[in-house]
């Protein structure tokens, strides 16, 4: 799976309350959720990513609550992948569950700038920064997680499993 996109950059400890503020948690439709993505931090975010984007962030991305609505909002707002120095545990699992690729990539915040063009090879665990002519090594995802992402998320993955049983 190869992903292309322009970088939108964030810092450390980006929490789920800014990714999707609590007052929007009652929204069920993902396209409605998407309208409020990152509202707590950058009200212009959804305009910025109309053509799809890759988020590059620092440490502990997605900390805070267990709301799956946070990665859902990002995915449906057009975020193709999130690359970070580290992820909060529940956000990480939720992203894979809903089919939003997330890769841990040490040192990425100092090697990528806002607007840089990236090519992410998920299977190989590699990030190429086209704008700076750099290749960065990310933590490879285990096989069973790749299978979930290949199926487009946990729901499809389980549906397949149930069918094949």
């Amino acid at each position, binding site marked *: 799976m190869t992903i292309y996109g322009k970088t939108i950059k964030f810092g*450390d400890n980006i*929490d789920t309350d800014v990714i999707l503020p609590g007052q929007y948690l*009652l929204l069920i439709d993902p396209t409605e959720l998407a309208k409020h993505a990152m509202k707590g931090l950058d009200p212009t975010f959804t305009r910025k990513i109309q053509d799809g984007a890759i988020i590059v962030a620092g440490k*502990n991305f997605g900390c805070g609550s267990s*709301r799956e609505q946070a990665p859902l909002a990002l995915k449906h707002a057009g975020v193709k992948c999130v690359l970070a120095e580290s992820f909060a545990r529940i956000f990480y699992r939720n992203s894979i569950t809903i089919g939003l690729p997330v890769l841990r990539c040490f040192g990425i915040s100092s090697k990528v700038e806002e607007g840089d063009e990236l090519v992410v090879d998920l299977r190989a665990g590699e990030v190429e920064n086209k704008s700076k002519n750099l290749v960065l090594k990310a933590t490879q995802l285990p096989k069973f997680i790749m299978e979930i992402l290949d199926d487009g998320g946990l729901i499809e993955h389980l549906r397949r499993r149930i069918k094949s049983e």
Partner: protein
Amino acid sequence: MNIIEKILARASGREEVSPGEIVEASIDVAMIHDLTGPLAIKSFQKIGAKKVWNNQRIVIILDHIVPASSVKSAESHKVVRNFAEEQKIDNFYDVGQGGVCHQVMAEKGHVRPGDLIVGADSHTCTYGALGAFATGIGSTEMAAVFVTGTLWFKVPEVIKVNVTGRFQNFVTPKDLILNIIGQIRADGAIYDGIEFAGSTIQNMRIDGRMVLCNMTVEMGAKTGIIVPNETTLNYVKSRTDKPFKPVKSDLDATYKKNLEVDVTDLEPQVSCPHSVDDVKPISEVDGVEVDQAFIGSCTNGRLEDLRLAAKLMEGRKVSKRVRLLVTPASQEVYLEALKEGLIKTFLEAGAIVCNPTCGPCLGGHLGLLAPGETCISSSNRNFVGRMGSPKAYVYLASPATVAVSAVTGKISNPRLLKEAKKIDDLWKNH
């Protein structure tokens, strides 16, 4: 093995597990609430499943936005209510029957030592206070649990926090955990477990232990846990007749790191906006003016918290510039507080006592903040926009600090109150 490894080994049918291994484990209890439940139910239906794997092992609690504040929240309640009925889930706590989910889970005997529990809520880690391995998961993963009764876990490394010393009066387990978060930082325990041990923990009551485990997620931890002792067993036995098997860490168990904390000289701690790990001793922040004060949440809305706050407020008035909100954590806590006269004290002081709910803590319902306002809160998060406007400020502190600050109108140290010495015994052996 340590307690976490033992529980994960038992639940995945293995003799032994070690950190980093990925195991598929059987779930003993699974919990959803009104904000994460509807999405879990939607995913459950999308998977195409008809019946949950075990309707006795599922607990559903309406607590985040109760009673419904809008047509939308009423609809979310209805979705969850219908699901409970359709799947014959007996452990369903509707509005007025339970309260804040993590408190209700413990009170109603759904948390038992040695169990593996998942909840679609990040503060599920609270249950470690009773010696269970409990952690938060997302809605769709919960749907997968509802279908299969199992889930994958990476066996975490564990940080052991050894706590010794006796608290000074009006210094509480909340001050301890804020201090620990300040040391470990918001990302210092990502994916790790945290085991609390030591004489201070051994002597701590259940309410306080729940505060410690509750906030481990604010350091990124997968869970907090305390090896059960007599206090734990007495509590659990008074709450359930179901059998359970307590587990403890071996003497030669391995840990990623050991942290020693002595509470003897600990002063009240305050977490400053907008990051939970920006923790300062109260002497560095006292005097900050507040507009609202909040006592409640799954962190500090228990009886012990209300007793302490009421004691400090007796015969006093909430400052004219402050709104004080008190939300007991459960119907049971509320009723007990009523019997003890605590509710009367709050009302006479000029507080508003709300029904048990998570509402104010997450800016979902009741007491939202306007731009530029400041709140001192006994809850667990002070992120941008957490309690309302993204331009509001939230300071986190103990119920004692919140109560005294509500009276003075600015962040104040409860230990400096003249009366502090007179009510020494209230906080003794804590």
